[in-house]
Protein backbone atom coordinates (compact mmCIF):
# COMPACT_ATOMS: atom_id res chain seq x y z
CA UNK A 1 0.00 0.00 0.00
CA UNK A 2 1.32 3.38 -1.00
CA UNK A 3 0.30 5.12 2.20
CA UNK A 4 2.36 2.92 4.52
CA UNK A 5 5.54 3.56 2.53
CA UNK A 6 5.40 7.35 2.79
CA UNK A 7 7.43 9.45 5.17
CA UNK A 8 5.91 10.78 8.37
CA UNK A 9 5.21 14.37 7.19
CA UNK A 10 3.44 13.06 4.10
CA UNK A 11 1.35 10.67 6.21
CA UNK A 12 0.36 13.37 8.69
CA UNK A 13 -0.51 15.64 5.78
CA UNK A 14 -2.74 13.03 4.18
CA UNK A 15 -4.60 12.52 7.47
CA UNK A 16 -4.95 16.28 8.03
CA UNK A 17 -6.30 16.87 4.53
CA UNK A 18 -8.73 13.97 4.82
CA UNK A 19 -10.06 15.37 8.12
CA UNK A 20 -10.35 18.82 6.57
CA UNK A 21 -12.23 17.48 3.57
CA UNK A 22 -14.69 15.63 5.84
CA UNK A 23 -15.26 18.82 7.89
CA UNK A 24 -15.82 20.84 4.71
CA UNK A 25 -18.25 18.38 3.14
CA UNK A 26 -20.25 17.96 6.34
CA UNK A 27 -19.93 21.63 7.36
CA UNK A 28 -23.59 22.10 8.43
CA UNK A 29 -23.24 19.22 10.89
CA UNK A 30 -19.69 19.97 12.07
CA UNK A 31 -20.02 23.73 12.59
CA UNK A 32 -21.54 24.61 15.98
CA UNK A 33 -23.25 27.74 14.57
CA UNK A 34 -24.49 28.93 11.21
CA UNK A 35 -21.96 31.09 9.35
CA UNK A 36 -24.24 34.12 9.54
CA UNK A 37 -25.74 33.87 13.03
CA UNK A 38 -24.86 37.03 14.94
CA UNK A 39 -24.34 37.19 18.66
CA UNK A 40 -24.56 40.96 18.96
CA UNK A 41 -23.78 40.94 22.66
CA UNK A 42 -20.49 39.20 22.02
CA UNK A 43 -18.65 40.92 19.16
CA UNK A 44 -14.89 40.55 18.73
CA UNK A 45 -14.69 38.08 21.61
CA UNK A 46 -11.47 36.21 22.28
CA UNK A 47 -11.52 32.41 21.94
CA UNK A 48 -13.33 30.68 24.82
CA UNK A 49 -15.44 27.58 25.56
CA UNK A 50 -18.50 28.60 23.53
CA UNK A 51 -16.65 30.23 20.61
CA UNK A 52 -13.50 28.18 20.06
CA UNK A 53 -11.91 30.77 17.80
CA UNK A 54 -13.72 33.83 19.15
CA UNK A 55 -16.20 36.00 17.26
CA UNK A 56 -15.79 38.64 14.55
CA UNK A 57 -16.89 42.27 14.21
CA UNK A 58 -20.53 41.24 13.76
CA UNK A 59 -20.49 38.65 16.54
CA UNK A 60 -20.34 35.66 14.20
CA UNK A 61 -18.61 32.49 15.36
CA UNK A 62 -15.16 32.37 13.71
CA UNK A 63 -14.82 28.58 14.05
CA UNK A 64 -18.05 27.99 12.14
CA UNK A 65 -17.06 30.53 9.49
CA UNK A 66 -13.69 28.80 9.16
CA UNK A 67 -15.40 25.48 8.41
CA UNK A 68 -17.65 27.04 5.79
CA UNK A 69 -14.61 28.87 4.44
CA UNK A 70 -12.86 25.52 4.08
CA UNK A 71 -15.75 24.47 1.84
CA UNK A 72 -15.10 27.36 -0.55
CA UNK A 73 -11.32 27.18 -0.49
CA UNK A 74 -11.11 23.40 -0.96
CA UNK A 75 -13.88 23.35 -3.56
CA UNK A 76 -12.09 25.93 -5.68
CA UNK A 77 -8.66 24.39 -5.13
CA UNK A 78 -9.63 20.80 -5.92
CA UNK A 79 -12.15 21.24 -8.72
CA UNK A 80 -10.42 23.96 -10.74
CA UNK A 81 -7.28 21.85 -10.65
CA UNK A 82 -9.12 18.66 -11.63
CA UNK A 83 -10.75 20.34 -14.61
CA UNK A 84 -7.47 22.02 -15.58
CA UNK A 85 -5.65 18.66 -15.45
CA UNK A 86 -8.29 17.00 -17.66
CA UNK A 87 -8.26 19.83 -20.23
CA UNK A 88 -4.47 20.12 -20.11
CA UNK A 89 -4.01 16.37 -20.53
CA UNK A 90 -6.26 16.10 -23.57
CA UNK A 91 -4.79 19.24 -25.15
CA UNK A 92 -1.20 18.29 -24.44
CA UNK A 93 -1.73 14.70 -25.59
CA UNK A 94 -3.30 15.77 -28.88
CA UNK A 95 -0.63 18.41 -29.47
CA UNK A 96 2.24 16.05 -28.73
CA UNK A 97 0.77 13.02 -30.52
CA UNK A 98 -0.31 14.76 -33.73
CA UNK A 99 2.85 16.88 -33.86
CA UNK A 100 3.92 19.00 -36.82
CA UNK A 101 1.97 22.11 -37.69
CA UNK A 102 -0.95 21.36 -35.35
CA UNK A 103 1.48 21.04 -32.49
CA UNK A 104 3.11 24.33 -33.44
CA UNK A 105 -0.15 26.27 -33.53
CA UNK A 106 -1.47 24.68 -30.33
CA UNK A 107 1.72 25.51 -28.47
CA UNK A 108 1.70 29.13 -29.71
CA UNK A 109 -1.66 29.54 -27.98
CA UNK A 110 -0.19 28.08 -24.81
CA UNK A 111 2.74 30.50 -25.08
CA UNK A 112 0.42 33.50 -25.16
CA UNK A 113 -1.39 32.38 -22.00
CA UNK A 114 2.03 31.73 -20.51
CA UNK A 115 3.40 35.18 -21.36
CA UNK A 116 1.80 36.90 -18.40
CA UNK A 117 1.98 35.74 -14.78
CA UNK A 118 -0.99 33.62 -13.62
CA UNK A 119 -2.34 35.99 -11.01
CA UNK A 120 -2.27 38.94 -13.43
CA UNK A 121 -4.17 36.89 -16.04
CA UNK A 122 -6.70 35.74 -13.45
CA UNK A 123 -7.37 39.31 -12.34
CA UNK A 124 -7.80 40.47 -15.96
CA UNK A 125 -10.21 37.63 -16.72
CA UNK A 126 -12.16 38.38 -13.55
CA UNK A 127 -12.54 42.00 -14.62
CA UNK A 128 -14.68 40.61 -17.43
CA UNK A 129 -16.41 37.79 -15.56
CA UNK A 130 -17.04 39.70 -12.38
CA UNK A 131 -16.14 38.83 -8.81
CA UNK A 132 -17.50 35.86 -6.92
CA UNK A 133 -17.20 32.10 -6.74
CA UNK A 134 -17.86 31.26 -10.39
CA UNK A 135 -15.81 34.15 -11.75
CA UNK A 136 -12.76 33.00 -9.85
CA UNK A 137 -13.52 29.36 -10.66
CA UNK A 138 -13.53 29.98 -14.39
CA UNK A 139 -10.56 32.35 -14.34
CA UNK A 140 -8.41 29.89 -12.40
CA UNK A 141 -9.34 27.02 -14.72
CA UNK A 142 -8.67 29.10 -17.85
CA UNK A 143 -5.17 29.91 -16.62
CA UNK A 144 -3.95 26.70 -15.01
CA UNK A 145 -4.48 24.13 -17.76
CA UNK A 146 -1.50 25.44 -19.77
CA UNK A 147 1.10 24.16 -17.29
CA UNK A 148 -0.42 20.68 -17.48
CA UNK A 149 -0.66 20.86 -21.27
CA UNK A 150 3.06 21.59 -21.57
CA UNK A 151 3.98 18.82 -19.18
CA UNK A 152 1.76 16.20 -20.85
CA UNK A 153 2.94 17.19 -24.33
CA UNK A 154 6.55 16.63 -23.25
CA UNK A 155 5.76 13.21 -21.81
CA UNK A 156 3.75 12.18 -24.87
CA UNK A 157 6.58 13.26 -27.19
CA UNK A 158 8.93 11.06 -25.19
CA UNK A 159 6.68 8.02 -24.94
CA UNK A 160 5.44 7.97 -28.54
CA UNK A 161 8.94 7.12 -29.73
CA UNK A 162 8.99 3.86 -27.76
CA UNK A 163 8.99 0.60 -29.68
CA UNK A 164 5.80 -0.72 -28.12
CA UNK A 165 3.85 2.22 -29.56
CA UNK A 166 5.16 1.32 -32.98
CA UNK A 167 4.13 -2.27 -32.30
CA UNK A 168 0.63 -1.14 -31.36
CA UNK A 169 0.42 0.83 -34.57
CA UNK A 170 1.70 -2.13 -36.55
CA UNK A 171 -1.13 -4.36 -35.33
CA UNK A 172 -3.59 -1.70 -36.42
CA UNK A 173 -4.54 0.09 -33.19
CA UNK A 174 -6.44 3.33 -33.77
CA UNK A 175 -4.95 6.70 -32.77
CA UNK A 176 -7.49 7.05 -29.97
CA UNK A 177 -6.57 3.65 -28.62
CA UNK A 178 -2.87 4.43 -28.73
CA UNK A 179 -3.28 7.74 -26.91
CA UNK A 180 -5.76 6.59 -24.26
CA UNK A 181 -4.73 2.96 -23.77
CA UNK A 182 -1.03 2.93 -24.54
CA UNK A 183 0.36 6.39 -23.76
CA UNK A 184 -1.76 8.03 -21.05
CA UNK A 185 -1.67 5.07 -18.61
CA UNK A 186 2.07 5.59 -18.52
CA UNK A 187 1.83 9.14 -17.23
CA UNK A 188 -0.94 8.82 -14.65
CA UNK A 189 1.68 8.91 -11.88
CA UNK A 190 3.03 12.22 -13.17
CA UNK A 191 -0.55 13.52 -13.42
CA UNK A 192 -1.42 12.62 -9.83
CA UNK A 193 1.75 14.32 -8.59
CA UNK A 194 0.97 17.40 -10.70
CA UNK A 195 -2.58 17.47 -9.38
CA UNK A 196 -1.31 17.39 -5.80
CA UNK A 197 1.15 20.21 -6.42
CA UNK A 198 -1.32 22.36 -8.40
CA UNK A 199 -4.13 22.28 -5.81
CA UNK A 200 -2.21 24.41 -3.26
CA UNK A 201 -1.31 26.86 -6.04
CA UNK A 202 -5.02 27.31 -6.78
CA UNK A 203 -5.89 27.62 -3.09
CA UNK A 204 -3.17 30.24 -2.68
CA UNK A 205 -4.39 32.19 -5.72
CA UNK A 206 -7.98 32.19 -4.44
CA UNK A 207 -7.06 33.26 -0.93
CA UNK A 208 -4.67 35.94 -2.19
CA UNK A 209 -7.32 37.41 -4.48
CA UNK A 210 -9.97 37.32 -1.78
CA UNK A 211 -7.52 38.88 0.65
CA UNK A 212 -6.91 41.91 -1.58
CA UNK A 213 -10.65 42.21 -2.21
CA UNK A 214 -10.73 40.94 -5.79
CA UNK A 215 -11.90 37.38 -5.15
CA UNK A 216 -14.90 35.91 -3.40
CA UNK A 217 -17.51 38.62 -2.83
CA UNK A 218 -19.39 38.94 0.46
CA UNK A 219 -21.61 37.51 1.95
CA UNK A 220 -19.99 34.18 0.94
CA UNK A 221 -16.67 33.58 2.59
CA UNK A 222 -13.42 31.75 2.06
CA UNK A 223 -10.28 31.65 4.16
CA UNK A 224 -9.02 34.59 2.10
CA UNK A 225 -12.00 36.82 2.93
CA UNK A 226 -11.74 35.77 6.59
CA UNK A 227 -8.08 36.77 6.59
CA UNK A 228 -9.10 40.10 5.07
CA UNK A 229 -11.67 40.60 7.86
CA UNK A 230 -8.89 39.88 10.33
CA UNK A 231 -6.50 42.20 8.52
CA UNK A 232 -8.75 45.23 9.12
CA UNK A 233 -8.70 44.48 12.85
CA UNK A 234 -5.07 43.39 12.98
CA UNK A 235 -3.79 45.79 15.61
CA UNK A 236 -6.25 45.02 18.39
CA UNK A 237 -7.75 41.64 17.52
CA UNK A 238 -4.91 39.62 15.97
CA UNK A 239 -6.72 36.33 16.66
CA UNK A 240 -9.07 37.10 13.75
CA UNK A 241 -6.29 36.85 11.17
CA UNK A 242 -4.43 34.08 13.00
CA UNK A 243 -6.87 31.23 12.36
CA UNK A 244 -7.53 31.71 8.63
CA UNK A 245 -3.81 32.32 8.03
CA UNK A 246 -2.93 29.15 9.89
CA UNK A 247 -5.55 27.16 7.98
CA UNK A 248 -4.26 28.37 4.59
CA UNK A 249 -0.65 27.76 5.58
CA UNK A 250 -1.24 24.25 6.97
CA UNK A 251 -3.36 23.21 3.99
CA UNK A 252 -0.79 24.40 1.42
CA UNK A 253 2.00 22.82 3.46
CA UNK A 254 0.14 19.51 3.66
CA UNK A 255 -0.46 19.39 -0.08
CA UNK A 256 3.23 20.11 -0.66
CA UNK A 257 4.34 17.35 1.72
CA UNK A 258 1.82 14.94 0.23
CA UNK A 259 2.98 15.86 -3.26
CA UNK A 260 6.60 15.14 -2.32
CA UNK A 261 5.61 11.81 -0.80
CA UNK A 262 3.66 10.85 -3.92
CA UNK A 263 6.40 12.03 -6.25
CA UNK A 264 8.95 9.79 -4.54
CA UNK A 265 6.68 6.83 -5.21
CA UNK A 266 5.00 7.63 -8.51
CA UNK A 267 7.05 9.88 -10.72
CA UNK A 268 9.16 7.79 -13.09
CA UNK A 269 11.48 10.74 -13.73
CA UNK A 270 12.28 10.79 -10.03
CA UNK A 271 12.59 6.99 -9.89
CA UNK A 272 14.98 6.96 -12.85
CA UNK A 273 17.40 9.42 -11.33
Amino acid at each position, binding site marked *: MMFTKMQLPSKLSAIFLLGLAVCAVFAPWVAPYSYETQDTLKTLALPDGTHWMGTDQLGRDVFSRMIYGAQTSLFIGVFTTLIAVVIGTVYGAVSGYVGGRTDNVMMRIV*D*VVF*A*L*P*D*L*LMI*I*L*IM*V*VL*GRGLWGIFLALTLVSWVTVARLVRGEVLRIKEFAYIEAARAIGASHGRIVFHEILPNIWGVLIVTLTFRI*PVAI*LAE*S*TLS*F*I*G*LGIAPPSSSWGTL*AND*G*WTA*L*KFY*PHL*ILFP*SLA*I*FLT*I*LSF*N*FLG*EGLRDRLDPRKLRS
Partner: protein
Amino acid sequence: MWMYFFKRLGHGIPVLLTVATLTFGIMHLVPGGPFDTEKKLPPEIIANIEAKYHLDKPVWHQYLLYMKQILQGDMGPSYKYVGRDVSDIILEAFPVSLVLGLCAVLVTLGLGIPFGVLSAARQNSWIDHSCIFAATLGISLPSFVLGALLILLFSHQWHLLPPALWEGPRHVILPAFALGAGFAGYIARLTRSTVVEVLGADYIRTARAKGLSETRVLLKHALSNSITPIVSVMGPLTAGLVTGSFVIEFIFSVPGMGNFFITAVTNRDYPLIMGVTLVYAVLIVLANIVVDLVYMKLDPRISLAGTKV
Protein backbone atom coordinates in the same frame (compact mmCIF):
# COMPACT_ATOMS: atom_id res chain seq x y z
CA MET B 1 25.37 38.41 -29.29
CA TRP B 2 23.65 41.55 -30.55
CA MET B 3 22.10 39.62 -33.42
CA TYR B 4 20.62 37.24 -30.90
CA PHE B 5 19.39 40.09 -28.75
CA PHE B 6 17.49 41.68 -31.62
CA LYS B 7 16.17 38.31 -32.73
CA ARG B 8 14.78 37.70 -29.26
CA LEU B 9 13.37 41.20 -29.18
CA GLY B 10 11.68 40.42 -32.50
CA HIS B 11 10.05 37.39 -30.91
CA GLY B 12 8.92 39.51 -27.98
CA ILE B 13 6.99 41.98 -30.12
CA PRO B 14 4.19 39.59 -31.22
CA VAL B 15 3.76 38.62 -27.57
CA LEU B 16 3.41 42.28 -26.59
CA LEU B 17 1.01 42.95 -29.47
CA THR B 18 -1.13 40.00 -28.41
CA VAL B 19 -1.13 41.20 -24.81
CA ALA B 20 -2.11 44.72 -25.91
CA THR B 21 -4.90 43.39 -28.12
CA LEU B 22 -6.13 41.00 -25.43
CA THR B 23 -6.24 43.67 -22.73
CA PHE B 24 -8.05 45.97 -25.11
CA GLY B 25 -10.53 43.21 -25.91
CA ILE B 26 -11.03 42.25 -22.29
CA MET B 27 -11.68 45.83 -21.24
CA HIS B 28 -14.30 46.25 -23.93
CA LEU B 29 -16.11 43.04 -23.04
CA VAL B 30 -16.74 44.11 -19.48
CA PRO B 31 -20.25 44.96 -18.40
CA GLY B 32 -20.64 48.44 -16.93
CA GLY B 33 -18.51 51.46 -17.63
CA PRO B 34 -16.39 53.74 -15.49
CA PHE B 35 -18.96 56.53 -15.68
CA ASP B 36 -21.95 54.47 -14.56
CA THR B 37 -23.24 56.24 -11.50
CA GLU B 38 -26.25 55.90 -9.24
CA LYS B 39 -27.46 59.29 -10.41
CA LYS B 40 -28.68 59.59 -13.98
CA LEU B 41 -26.51 62.10 -15.80
CA PRO B 42 -28.02 64.37 -18.47
CA PRO B 43 -27.45 62.87 -21.95
CA GLU B 44 -25.41 65.88 -23.10
CA ILE B 45 -22.91 65.34 -20.31
CA ILE B 46 -22.63 61.64 -21.11
CA ALA B 47 -22.07 62.52 -24.76
CA ASN B 48 -19.37 64.99 -23.77
CA ILE B 49 -17.59 62.51 -21.56
CA GLU B 50 -17.76 59.83 -24.24
CA ALA B 51 -16.41 62.21 -26.84
CA LYS B 52 -13.51 63.18 -24.59
CA TYR B 53 -12.46 59.57 -24.04
CA HIS B 54 -13.35 58.48 -27.62
CA LEU B 55 -15.98 56.12 -26.27
CA ASP B 56 -18.46 57.29 -28.93
CA LYS B 57 -16.36 55.89 -31.79
CA PRO B 58 -16.77 52.35 -33.10
CA VAL B 59 -14.67 49.70 -31.38
CA TRP B 60 -12.23 49.16 -34.27
CA HIS B 61 -11.57 52.91 -34.34
CA GLN B 62 -10.95 52.93 -30.62
CA TYR B 63 -8.56 50.01 -31.09
CA LEU B 64 -6.54 51.81 -33.76
CA LEU B 65 -6.44 55.00 -31.72
CA TYR B 66 -5.31 52.98 -28.72
CA MET B 67 -2.54 51.18 -30.63
CA LYS B 68 -1.33 54.44 -32.12
CA GLN B 69 -1.21 56.05 -28.70
CA ILE B 70 0.70 53.15 -27.15
CA LEU B 71 3.32 53.27 -29.88
CA GLN B 72 3.81 56.94 -29.03
CA GLY B 73 4.22 56.02 -25.37
CA ASP B 74 0.98 57.77 -24.53
CA MET B 75 -1.53 55.63 -22.69
CA GLY B 76 -4.23 58.23 -22.42
CA PRO B 77 -5.82 59.88 -19.42
CA SER B 78 -6.83 57.91 -16.35
CA TYR B 79 -10.59 57.63 -15.85
CA LYS B 80 -10.44 57.87 -12.10
CA TYR B 81 -7.52 60.17 -11.34
CA VAL B 82 -8.92 63.17 -13.16
CA GLY B 83 -6.37 65.29 -14.99
CA ARG B 84 -3.59 62.69 -14.77
CA ASP B 85 -2.20 60.63 -17.60
CA VAL B 86 -1.65 56.92 -17.19
CA SER B 87 1.98 57.35 -18.24
CA ASP B 88 2.51 59.94 -15.47
CA ILE B 89 1.09 57.60 -12.85
CA ILE B 90 3.25 54.74 -14.13
CA LEU B 91 6.38 56.89 -14.24
CA GLU B 92 5.76 57.82 -10.64
CA ALA B 93 4.88 54.33 -9.40
CA PHE B 94 7.43 52.30 -11.38
CA PRO B 95 10.59 53.42 -9.49
CA VAL B 96 8.90 52.59 -6.20
CA SER B 97 8.10 49.06 -7.32
CA LEU B 98 11.54 48.70 -8.87
CA VAL B 99 13.31 49.54 -5.60
CA LEU B 100 11.01 47.19 -3.71
CA GLY B 101 11.56 44.42 -6.26
CA LEU B 102 15.36 44.77 -6.27
CA CYS B 103 15.51 44.74 -2.47
CA ALA B 104 13.28 41.65 -2.50
CA VAL B 105 15.67 39.93 -4.93
CA LEU B 106 18.52 40.71 -2.52
CA VAL B 107 16.53 39.09 0.30
CA THR B 108 15.72 36.05 -1.86
CA LEU B 109 19.30 35.45 -2.96
CA GLY B 110 20.79 36.51 0.38
CA LEU B 111 18.73 33.90 2.22
CA GLY B 112 18.40 31.25 -0.46
CA ILE B 113 21.97 30.78 -1.70
CA PRO B 114 23.80 30.58 1.69
CA PHE B 115 21.27 28.14 3.13
CA GLY B 116 21.31 26.08 -0.05
CA VAL B 117 25.11 25.83 0.01
CA LEU B 118 25.12 25.03 3.72
CA SER B 119 22.54 22.34 3.14
CA ALA B 120 24.53 20.79 0.31
CA ALA B 121 27.81 20.94 2.23
CA ARG B 122 26.26 19.03 5.13
CA GLN B 123 24.22 16.68 2.97
CA ASN B 124 21.83 14.40 4.90
CA SER B 125 22.84 15.84 8.29
CA TRP B 126 20.31 17.40 10.64
CA ILE B 127 21.34 20.84 9.29
CA ASP B 128 20.43 19.71 5.78
CA HIS B 129 17.10 18.27 6.91
CA SER B 130 16.14 21.39 8.84
CA CYS B 131 17.08 23.62 5.88
CA ILE B 132 14.89 21.55 3.53
CA PHE B 133 12.08 21.58 6.07
CA ALA B 134 12.38 25.36 6.54
CA ALA B 135 12.37 25.83 2.76
CA THR B 136 9.12 23.87 2.45
CA LEU B 137 7.62 25.97 5.26
CA GLY B 138 8.70 29.15 3.45
CA ILE B 139 7.26 27.99 0.12
CA SER B 140 3.93 27.19 1.79
CA LEU B 141 3.63 30.49 3.67
CA PRO B 142 1.45 32.96 1.72
CA SER B 143 3.10 36.37 1.47
CA PHE B 144 0.11 38.16 2.97
CA VAL B 145 0.33 35.95 6.04
CA LEU B 146 4.04 36.68 6.37
CA GLY B 147 3.39 40.39 5.82
CA ALA B 148 0.70 40.53 8.49
CA LEU B 149 2.90 38.60 10.88
CA LEU B 150 5.84 40.98 10.32
CA ILE B 151 3.63 44.04 10.87
CA LEU B 152 2.15 42.52 14.01
CA LEU B 153 5.57 41.75 15.51
CA PHE B 154 7.89 44.49 14.26
CA SER B 155 5.42 47.37 14.16
CA HIS B 156 2.60 46.78 16.62
CA GLN B 157 4.42 44.67 19.20
CA TRP B 158 8.00 45.92 19.25
CA HIS B 159 7.57 49.30 17.50
CA LEU B 160 10.81 48.81 15.56
CA LEU B 161 9.74 49.47 11.98
CA PRO B 162 6.91 51.39 10.30
CA PRO B 163 3.93 49.23 9.22
CA ALA B 164 3.05 51.18 6.07
CA LEU B 165 3.82 53.93 3.54
CA TRP B 166 6.99 54.69 1.63
CA GLU B 167 9.05 57.44 3.21
CA GLY B 168 12.62 56.26 3.45
CA PRO B 169 14.89 53.25 3.80
CA ARG B 170 13.23 52.14 7.04
CA HIS B 171 9.98 51.70 5.14
CA VAL B 172 11.59 49.30 2.65
CA ILE B 173 12.73 46.62 5.10
CA LEU B 174 9.47 44.87 6.01
CA PRO B 175 7.84 44.81 2.56
CA ALA B 176 11.08 43.72 0.86
CA PHE B 177 11.46 40.89 3.34
CA ALA B 178 7.81 39.82 3.04
CA LEU B 179 8.08 39.83 -0.76
CA GLY B 180 11.47 38.14 -1.05
CA ALA B 181 11.44 35.53 1.69
CA GLY B 182 8.88 33.26 0.03
CA PHE B 183 11.04 32.75 -3.04
CA ALA B 184 14.13 32.07 -0.90
CA GLY B 185 12.79 28.57 -0.28
CA TYR B 186 12.84 27.77 -4.00
CA ILE B 187 16.32 29.25 -4.44
CA ALA B 188 17.63 27.31 -1.42
CA ARG B 189 16.34 24.00 -2.78
CA LEU B 190 17.64 24.73 -6.26
CA THR B 191 21.07 25.76 -4.94
CA ARG B 192 21.22 22.66 -2.78
CA SER B 193 20.44 20.24 -5.59
CA THR B 194 22.85 21.84 -8.08
CA VAL B 195 25.69 22.12 -5.56
CA VAL B 196 25.16 18.48 -4.55
CA GLU B 197 25.37 17.51 -8.21
CA VAL B 198 28.49 19.59 -8.83
CA LEU B 199 30.19 18.23 -5.71
CA GLY B 200 30.13 14.79 -7.32
CA ALA B 201 32.08 16.00 -10.37
CA ASP B 202 35.64 14.96 -11.14
CA TYR B 203 37.17 18.42 -10.97
CA ILE B 204 35.94 18.76 -7.38
CA ARG B 205 37.85 15.59 -6.51
CA THR B 206 40.88 17.09 -8.23
CA ALA B 207 40.50 20.31 -6.26
CA ARG B 208 40.28 18.33 -3.03
CA ALA B 209 43.24 16.20 -4.04
CA LYS B 210 45.30 19.34 -4.56
CA GLY B 211 44.72 19.96 -0.85
CA LEU B 212 42.37 22.94 -1.12
CA SER B 213 40.38 23.65 1.99
CA GLU B 214 36.77 22.46 1.99
CA THR B 215 35.47 26.07 2.19
CA ARG B 216 37.51 27.01 -0.85
CA VAL B 217 36.34 23.98 -2.80
CA LEU B 218 32.76 24.80 -1.88
CA LEU B 219 32.75 28.52 -2.56
CA LYS B 220 35.19 28.83 -5.43
CA HIS B 221 34.66 25.64 -7.39
CA ALA B 222 31.26 24.26 -6.48
CA LEU B 223 29.20 27.41 -6.06
CA SER B 224 30.53 29.28 -9.07
CA ASN B 225 29.59 26.31 -11.23
CA SER B 226 26.11 26.08 -9.74
CA ILE B 227 25.21 29.68 -10.50
CA THR B 228 23.74 29.04 -13.98
CA PRO B 229 20.56 27.23 -12.85
CA ILE B 230 19.97 30.05 -10.38
CA VAL B 231 20.25 32.60 -13.19
CA SER B 232 17.75 30.63 -15.26
CA VAL B 233 15.02 31.01 -12.63
CA MET B 234 15.41 34.77 -12.50
CA GLY B 235 12.85 35.08 -15.33
CA PRO B 236 10.05 33.26 -13.46
CA LEU B 237 11.21 35.07 -10.32
CA THR B 238 10.56 38.45 -11.97
CA ALA B 239 7.04 37.30 -12.83
CA GLY B 240 6.60 36.09 -9.26
CA LEU B 241 7.78 39.42 -7.86
CA VAL B 242 5.30 41.27 -10.08
CA THR B 243 2.30 39.32 -8.79
CA GLY B 244 3.73 39.27 -5.27
CA SER B 245 3.87 43.06 -5.33
CA PHE B 246 0.05 43.24 -5.69
CA VAL B 247 -0.40 41.82 -2.21
CA ILE B 248 2.66 43.30 -0.53
CA GLU B 249 2.06 46.84 -1.80
CA PHE B 250 -1.58 46.49 -0.76
CA ILE B 251 -0.66 45.38 2.78
CA PHE B 252 2.09 47.94 3.32
CA SER B 253 0.30 50.77 1.45
CA VAL B 254 3.28 51.19 -0.86
CA PRO B 255 2.44 53.61 -3.73
CA GLY B 256 3.82 51.26 -6.41
CA MET B 257 2.49 49.74 -9.62
CA GLY B 258 0.90 46.75 -7.90
CA ASN B 259 -1.12 48.96 -5.61
CA PHE B 260 -2.26 51.19 -8.48
CA PHE B 261 -3.19 48.08 -10.47
CA ILE B 262 -5.40 46.72 -7.70
CA THR B 263 -7.07 50.12 -7.22
CA ALA B 264 -7.53 50.45 -10.99
CA VAL B 265 -9.25 47.05 -11.15
CA THR B 266 -11.55 47.99 -8.27
CA ASN B 267 -12.37 51.34 -9.93
CA ARG B 268 -12.68 49.91 -13.48
CA ASP B 269 -10.10 52.47 -14.60
CA TYR B 270 -9.48 50.75 -17.96
CA PRO B 271 -6.63 52.89 -19.34
CA LEU B 272 -4.69 52.40 -16.12
CA ILE B 273 -5.34 48.64 -16.08
CA MET B 274 -4.18 48.35 -19.68
CA GLY B 275 -1.15 50.59 -19.11
CA VAL B 276 0.09 48.69 -16.08
CA THR B 277 -0.52 45.32 -17.75
CA LEU B 278 1.51 46.41 -20.77
CA VAL B 279 4.39 47.64 -18.64
CA TYR B 280 4.39 44.28 -16.83
CA ALA B 281 4.42 42.43 -20.14
CA VAL B 282 7.36 44.50 -21.43
CA LEU B 283 9.17 43.99 -18.13
CA ILE B 284 8.76 40.21 -18.22
CA VAL B 285 9.72 39.89 -21.89
CA LEU B 286 12.85 41.99 -21.26
CA ALA B 287 13.73 40.08 -18.08
CA ASN B 288 13.59 36.80 -19.97
CA ILE B 289 15.84 38.14 -22.73
CA VAL B 290 18.37 39.46 -20.21
CA VAL B 291 18.33 36.14 -18.35
CA ASP B 292 18.99 34.26 -21.58
CA LEU B 293 21.88 36.54 -22.46
CA VAL B 294 23.47 36.25 -19.02
CA TYR B 295 22.90 32.51 -19.13
CA MET B 296 24.82 32.22 -22.37
CA LYS B 297 27.67 34.37 -21.11
CA LEU B 298 27.98 32.16 -18.05
CA ASP B 299 27.73 28.83 -19.82
CA PRO B 300 29.63 28.68 -23.12
CA ARG B 301 28.20 25.20 -23.79
CA ILE B 302 24.88 26.80 -24.72
CA SER B 303 25.28 27.90 -28.30
CA LEU B 304 23.50 30.88 -29.78
CA ALA B 305 22.17 29.02 -32.76
CA GLY B 306 20.86 26.05 -30.85
CA THR B 307 18.77 28.02 -28.39
CA LYS B 308 15.08 27.62 -28.98
CA VAL B 309 12.90 30.60 -28.32
